[in-house]
Structures are given as C-alpha cells and as structure tokens.
C-alpha cells in the first residue's frame, strides 16, 4: 500500500479550494514549503501571506482577515503554535471567528528532529478553548474531505496534520461529517479508539488480537471536539473495555476526552495510550514503538484489559 502524508493532502486540497473560492486566504510563518503550499505561493500571491517566523502575529493577522470577510487558513508546525496561543485564545476563539489554524507535524511525526520538534500538547490546550473545533484526520483521503468541510464550518477550527507518510484507511468516497466518529470495524470484546494516523495502528492491532480470539471494535475519531459521545458510549457499553491511542501527551488529548465521557456515564474500563515523556530523535517507526503508541502497544493493552489485569 502506498503511504501518503496528511500534510500532502492538505497542500493539494487547499490549492484546489483556493482556485475556486476567492474568500480563502493562506498564511504561514515561514513553513509554506513544509505545509506543501508551494503552488499557492506561486499562483495566488495576493491571497498568500508569509508572516516570517512569527506565529503569534500570524494568528492575529488571520483574525483580522476573518473580520474582513476572508476565510483564513493559517499553518505552522503544531509545536510552534504554543506561542500563538494567546492570540488564538482571544482574537480567534473569544471573537469567535472563522479561522482555520493548521498544526502540521503533529505528535512525534517529525521524529528525527527530536523532542523539541514534537507537538504533544496542542490538542490539550485547544480542547480547553470555548468555540474551538478540533479535527485530526486519519489519513490522506480523509484530510482532503475534512479540509473542505472545515472551510464551510462556522467558527474557529484547529486542524492537525502529520509529517510522516502513513497508511490509507479511509476510502475516497466515504462521507466526512464534523463531529462524527467512524466505526472502522465492529467487534464485541474491546473498543480501540484512535485518532489521526494511529487509527491505522489500531487496525493492525485488531488483526493481531483476533489470533487470540479477541474481537476488537475500532473507532476512528477524526473530530476530537465536539466529541462523538454517542458512538463512543454505544461501543463502550457493548464491549465494556476501551483502549485509546493517540500521538499526543497522555494528558488532555483524546484519551482524556474519552475518559471524561466514560466516567461521567459510569461505563467501561479504560486504558489510555499516549506519551508520558518528551520525545527523542529516531526513525518514526522505531520511535512510536519506543514511546508506546504503535500497534504493539495497543495489542498489549487490549490483552491486559480483556484478561482483567
């Protein structure tokens, strides 16, 4: 299977959208090439702005463009958006403006660059913001649809992308609805709930678990906020056991969001997989294995839960 990155899908789709929709305005803070905006820079110089290495200003300028009736799509590496948080909070979220903030190279997907380049907190702080919607598509095809949906969605959107090319799991004709989880596989013994490219890891884990007679259900959550509580609860009530998997800190991301829903409804047993430490340099596959967010980690956690450990 061909591996493709979600950032590639983003650049291609944004270019296609900007050809047709003159409201859309692309911004970056000196990472246009990394976010695959090359053709946009060349063909739409008026609706493209490079703010230089200045993420806070980029977010504020995007808010102003939204007030001026454009639909700004402002991207940097997710890890650098921490310094734009103040502007995102007040000028985008409290003003409640339709700005799409793009955080690329999410999680440890910028693996060889090492711990300083890994974005492990973005979903946690974006989740805490009123009005914010968080999209974290699973693969290339889903990113294309999610971006088109975000352009038409009112209010602020945080859109997470990944550097590493990963497996395709969503078919190109699947419907994408913001706020809706995808049941990738039905099962009765345990629910594997994943977001971003980790959904592909959950599929591999489910294939491994079936060897032990464990029938796993797989939910992919391309929308983290608002959370599809109904689908999560239906699945958890059926299986009684949930493992969450994400390329993010164990605190504040998908796992925390699912924990809140399960606890408030007194449903199921839960194990969260995510990072408990800062990352380090390495090959992407080796690194996700070492930090425990690969298919092997999910298989082990699922077996333990099923055995009641």
């Amino acid at each position: 299977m061909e591996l493709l990155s979600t950032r590639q899908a983003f650049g291609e789709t944004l270019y296609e959208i900007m050809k047709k929709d003159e409201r859309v305005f692309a911004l970056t803070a000196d990472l246009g090439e990394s976010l695959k905006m090359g053709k946009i820079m060349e063909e739409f110089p008026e609706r493209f702005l490079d703010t230089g290495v200045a993420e806070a200003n980029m977010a504020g300028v995007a808010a102003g463009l939204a007030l001026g009736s454009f639909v700004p799509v402002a991207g940097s590496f997710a890890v650098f958006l921490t310094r734009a948080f103040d502007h995102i909070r007040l000028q985008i979220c409290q003003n409640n403006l339709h700005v799409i903030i793009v955080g690329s190279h999410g999680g440890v997907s910028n693996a060889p660059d090492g711990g300083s380049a890994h974005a492990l907190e973005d979903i946690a702080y974006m989740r805490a913001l009123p009005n914010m919607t968080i999209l974290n598509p699973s693969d290339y095809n889903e990113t294309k649809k999610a971006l088109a949906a975000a352009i038409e969605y009112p209010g602020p959107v945080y859109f997470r992308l990944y550097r590493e090319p990963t497996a395709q799991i969503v078919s190109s004709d699947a419907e994408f609805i913001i706020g809706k989880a995808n049941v990738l596989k039905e099962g009765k013994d345990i629910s594997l709930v994943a977001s971003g490219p980790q959904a592909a890891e959950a599929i591999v884990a489910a294939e491994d678990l079936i060897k032990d007679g464990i029938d796993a259900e797989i939910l992919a959550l391309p929308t983290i906020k608002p959370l599809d509580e109904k689908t999560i609860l239906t699945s958890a009530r059926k299986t009684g056991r949930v493992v969450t998997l994400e390329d993010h800190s164990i605190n504040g991301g998908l796992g925390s969001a699912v924990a809140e829903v399960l606890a408030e409804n007194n449903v199921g047993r839960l194990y969260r997989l995510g990072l408990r430490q800062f990352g380090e340099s390495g090959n992407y596959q080796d690194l996700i294995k070492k930090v425990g967010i690969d298919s092997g980690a999910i298989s082990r956690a699922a077996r333990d839960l099923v055995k009641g450990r």
Partner: protein
Amino acid sequence: MIKKQMSMSQANNSQELTQIARELRLLALRAMYQCGSGHPGSTFSTMDVLTALYFGGILKYDPAQPDWQERDYFLLSNGHAAPALYAVLAKAGYFAETELDKLRQLGAGAQGHPHRGALPGVEISSGSLGQGLSVGIGLARAAQLKKSGQKIYVMQSDGEQEEGSTWEAVMLAPKLGLDNLITIIDKNGMQIDGATKQVMPSLDPLADKYRAFGWAVKEIDGHNFDEIIPAFKEVQEEGKPLVIIANTVRGKGVSFMENSPSWHAGKITDEQYEQAKKDLMK
C-alpha cells in the same frame, strides 16, 4: 452618515472637542467610581485622541449599522482603557449611556475589558496586550485587496511596546505597504510597575524604531486637538503604515491621578470622586 460625520467635523473646533472630551471623562469617571474598579490612568490619557477620532470627522462609521461593510475600524489594543471606548461609543449613539452604569457588573455589555459581541461598536476583544496591531494588519490587508478605501485605526499603549508580538506586527505591516493602517501609541510614560523609562529604559527612542522598520512617524501632543486632528487628516505617505506617537499624561484632567504611579488601576473613593469631578469641570 459619512456626510453627517464630515459636517460635524467641519463644525467642530478645538473648544467643542475639548468640551466633548470633558463630558466623556465625567461619564467614564462615574462608571469607574460606581463599580469600584477600573483603569482611570489610560482611560483619561487616551480620551482626547478617541474624541478626535469619533467626533473630529476622522473615523467613518454609522452607529445605526454597526456592521456596515464600508466602515473604518477602530481597535482598542490596550483594552484596559475600555471605559474611554464605552463612553465614546455611547456618545456616538451605539448604545445608551446607561450601559456605562453597569460597567464590570455580571451580565453587562460593558465588560471590564472589551468583549466582541457584548456591545455594538466593540470590534474585537482585547486586554492581553500586543494583539491589536496584528488584527489591524489582517483587516488592512483585507481592505487593500478589496480596494474598499477603508482605514484601520489601532490604539496601543506604550507599555504594550514591550510585548514581543507587537514587533512581529510592526515588522510585517511595511512589507504589505499598508497605507490604510494607522496606529496611535498612547505614550503616557507610565505602566503598572512605574515609569516606563524605569521599567524599560531602552523603549526610547520609539519613533526611531518605527522609522527603522519602514513606518511613517508623527509625534504629537495627545491632548491638543490642534495637533491631533491634522495628524489624522494629512494625506498618508503612500505605501507606508503610519504611527502617531501621542505624548499623553496618565490620568489626564484629574489632579491626583496625573502622572501618579498608583493610578494605573484602582478604586475611586467618595472624596476622590468629588475632587475628580471638580478637576474635570474646571
């Protein structure tokens, strides 16, 4: 409405603007006295420039249509001067002056710092410093692309110049040739921890810094309408954003607040309220 504002400006002279500013200071003073908190220092130092913008025929606006697509924008980046903005917007007809009597109360439109959507005419939320100029750049770029002729005015404080993101914005505006962007710096020389000269001695020379980044620069007495009005009305240098450094006095008009280190914010007592009213009516 544009015509009405323009004709108002022609009728206005400095004495009339001074009288309007006096009424607005009294209105803001009463609001801050009643609620027992607020930031009189900047509320009074910015009031004359705000009066000139809204009542001196500078800003193009229509209180009957706050969302009028062709309006100019005024953004208060130093949001703690909110009572000045509320007084001006009320006087301009965006809402009743009684809104100021609810300042800082639960459910009020007149929030402690401006909150977009809470009152008509409040364009953006502000309070965390160093954000307004960035938003102004986005609005000015949008107006430039639409060739709408709109102007974008952003008020900043001098303490706000210490924020790093302010300089990200200062650096960017000339790249876009935004000659529809005007920022006013309310240089009252004071901040929370004392005189700006002491907190950040290297902030000056401020004009040279903006000039070095490619801005057109004017320096004026921010309490003299004969300097404020021409600074706004003179044709802006083509292709350059404009900064107007308004030298002002913290707490302008109230004897015990003027240049006082303790009047960034605070509660106004009954005696102080009487004294302040007397000072302002002089």
